[in-house]
């Protein structure tokens, strides 16, 4: 109880203290004439509709066209967006948001609480058929599951406008990290009149009305997106970057060439090139932690191989992999090897001490792996044969080849199967695999976004790892005073049962133009906003 009210009031205090101005240009800095920011997209933007969009690149664009209740600053902390602050009820199930009264849509109309009510209902509405409808369930908003199933109407969603600038949300279980979830694009407001007037065409350039710092000027599918500063944005006078352009370049090496030619301000560094680029362009090559984890998921369900049902086999497989080689010789991008599931840079999370990670070196782990395999009954006269499937990518292939060599050392014959991505995913979801390459990206900056995945009631538990103690820990963590110790216990269970083989935690490895400032340096979600950017004069 006490912790929750403390959390609530500190959230209040934080947000009031942080009257975050858009671009924090320090004193005495000269701004360049040209305030255009051009960044790289791997693929075409699939949708400009916040409730329809499903991918990270779409979110990067949408965050500039729309604004949600809260934003994140360069360190991943929450700052006011449309909402100035909020109050939480004693039981942690009712949130009341105070919205600012100067927020406007790009057509001049004021942003009201109703706009959020409309967009949240829309997200859950079966008629919208959003692929992200489950996010409303994840937020535990009242009646979300029933509405998605079609048993209740969207009007019964646990959100209502008390008045134009006060929004009330009711959730079924208290979630300590609920405010963090509001940064996600699916919760952005949309203007009902525009959506209803134009239907599917409402997101076209020129028709799209947003409440973000920029408006959509041009969208050539597969070629470019152009956004221009929106003068009706409540903080427009502090927005320095005038124009934001996103160029779609389907080949990352080509994109790097064009970055070096000056056509882009930011691009991903192709795998393996970071050391060289860091040497040649030390100020431009950057590696920051990124909220995704790379693992080999083990099929411990009924359709999986007998061998994987033995915990000693699973541990042996995990111990034998030399993560340092993968991170230092193959990826070479500043990624960190992982011995647990939750990303190391997640706020407030600290990996508990794990025997196999902290008290053994790789040579000892390999020895132990051999022992465990022998105990399980495998050896030269009874070799262990397994398959590892991965989706098409040079990097996945290299890591898989390395893994197969490492496992060969302990006498495991690993067959590698490369599948096109949809086939790979389909097979995983039907449990048609032994070991499969898998990555999970967190939806918000808190450990449960990872740990919830391996509960028996999660819809994503493709390995079918069912553990009652683990389930209980995760259920209890929702109402605990401090969930962190429970998360650590959960990670310990994962280390004891080894349903997944952790390989590494992601990093964002980019080339960023030296004269661009304002991009987040410590935000594990890499949530950047065009309104925070500015270009410095030479």
């Amino acid at each position, binding site marked *: 109880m006490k912790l929750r009210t403390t959390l609530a009031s500190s959230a209040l205090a934080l947000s009031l203290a942080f009257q975050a101005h858009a671009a924090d240009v320090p004193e005495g800095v000269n701004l360049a004439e040209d305030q255009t920011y051009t960044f790289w997209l791997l693929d075409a933007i699939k*949708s400009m509709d916040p409730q329809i969009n499903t991918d990270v690149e779409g979110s990067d664009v949408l965050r500039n066209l729309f604004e949600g209740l809260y934003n994140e600053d360069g360190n991943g902390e929450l700052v006011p967006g449309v909402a100035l602050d909020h109050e939480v009820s004693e039981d942690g199930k009712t949130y009341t948001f105070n919205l600012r009264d100067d927020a406007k849509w790009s057509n001049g109309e004021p942003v009201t609480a109703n706009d959020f009510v409309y967009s949240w209902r829309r997200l859950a509405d079966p008629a919208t058929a959003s692929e992200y409808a489950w996010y409303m369930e994840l937020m535990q908003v009242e009646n979300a599951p029933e509405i998605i199933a079609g048993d209740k109407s969207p009007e019964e969603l646990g959100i209502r406008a008390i008045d134009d600038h006060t929004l009330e949300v009711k959730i079924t279980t208290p979630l300590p990290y609920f405010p963090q979830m509001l940064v996600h694009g699916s919760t952005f407001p949309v203007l009902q009149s525009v959506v209803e007037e134009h239907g599917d065409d409402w997101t076209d350039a020129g028709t799209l009305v947003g409440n973000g710092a920029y408006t959509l000027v041009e969208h050539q599918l597969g070629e470019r997106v152009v956004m221009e500063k929106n003068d009706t944005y409540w903080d427009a006078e502090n927005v320095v970057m005038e124009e934001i352009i996103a160029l779609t370049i389907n080949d990352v090496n*080509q994109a790097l060439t064009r970055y070096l030619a000056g056509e882009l301000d930011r691009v991903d560094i192709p795998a393996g090139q970071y050391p060289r680029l860091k040497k040649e362009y030390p100020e431009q090559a950057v590696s920051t932690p990124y909220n995704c984890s790379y693992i080999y998921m083990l099929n411990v369900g009924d359709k999986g191989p007998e061998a994987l049902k033995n915990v000693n086999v699973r541990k042996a497989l995990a111990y034998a992999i030399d993560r340092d080689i993968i991170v230092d010789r193959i990826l070479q991008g500043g990624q960190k090897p992982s011995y647990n599931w939750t990303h190391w840079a997640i706020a407030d999370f600290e990996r508990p001490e794990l025997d196999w990670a902290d008290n053994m070196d790789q040579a000892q782990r390999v020895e132990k792996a051999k022992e465990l395999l022998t105990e399980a009954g495998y050896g030269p006269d009874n070799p262990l044969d397994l398959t590892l499937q991965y989706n098409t990518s040079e990097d996945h292939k290299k890591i898989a080849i390395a893994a197969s060599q490492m496992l060969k050392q302990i006498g495991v014959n690993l067959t590698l199967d490369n599948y096109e991505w949809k086939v790979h995913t389909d097979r995983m979801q039907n449990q048609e695999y032994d070991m499969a390459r898998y990555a999970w990206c967190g939806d918000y900056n808190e450990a449960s976004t990872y740990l919830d995945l391996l509960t028996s009631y999660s819809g994503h538990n493709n390995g079918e790892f069912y553990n009652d103690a683990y389930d209980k820990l995760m259920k209890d963590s929702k109402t605990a005073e401090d969930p962190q110790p429970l998360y650590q216990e959960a990670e310990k269970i994962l280390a004891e049962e080894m349903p997944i083989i952790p390989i590494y935690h992601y990093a964002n490895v980019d080339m960023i133009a030296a004269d661009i400032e304002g991009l987040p340096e410590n935000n594990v979600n890499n949530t950047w906003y065009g309104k925070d950017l500015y270009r410095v004069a030479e």
Partner: protein
Amino acid sequence: MLSYILKRLAIAIPTLLLLIVISFLLMHSAPGGPFTSERELPPQVLANLNAKYGLDDPLWKQITTYVWGIVTEFDFGPSFVYKDRSVNEIIAQGFPITLTYGLLSFAVAVIVGVSLGVAAAVRHNSALDYAAVGVSIGAQVLPNFVMAPILVLVFTLWLGWLPGGGWQGPEYWIMPVIALSTSFMASIARITRSSMLEVLTSNHIRTARAKGLPERRVILRHALKPAMLPVISYLGPAFVAMITGSVVVDIYFSTGGIGKAFVDSALNRDYAVMMGVTILVGALTIFFNLVVDILYGWIDPKIRY
């Protein structure tokens, strides 16, 4: 001739229908669907999506609804992946782009290729001939996905003369056209050359020369037309190869053309876009082959339809 054309067009329709049905069935036989993703959708959400796009109907119903939509309203349906856009819109944006650089590449390949081939044949065994053949062989084996990055490296990064990609004006057309046309130009040059060499030894050319006609007239008026026959036969398959080549151009030069949509829609299981582009390409191929056959008849009076 006219009845021949009408007959060909009449056969085109059942051909297209067969193409639609086979493509449709093949596509649906691949594992995975448009909504298969790492975040496995909860069953209810998936059910809502399938209902919205009619994917829970039996296959025969999906095909007939689809064909009916095309025949009655020319509506190719919504994209399952680019949900803001219909297939018509996607094709309307991408096709003119592909058509522009496609036609330009074709024109460049034919004009330059034929000229080079004729020049090489006329100056047989000269330095020009050897150079032309040498360059042709080199250009023919250089794949366009190697040439594209090299072009960008040279012209964008090193020289800074041309933009590295995009589609904002004529200067954006130059490198895609070069990348796409080069290997065809080389093939056309070699075919023209050998065909021309053969024609130049024929009787009617000897007669023309004996009559005292200037060499230029001999070549352009009497030799060129018959020499073009093998080139024209080559144009049919070349057209198809250029379509697949356009995928590479789209990827490397970010043109936003339809070639990439073709490949992407297969990988994304975006059934509607895939069908739309398949039909488009199928119709174009049929049409183009018809044009080639008519050209054939025009050039060679011995061929009568």
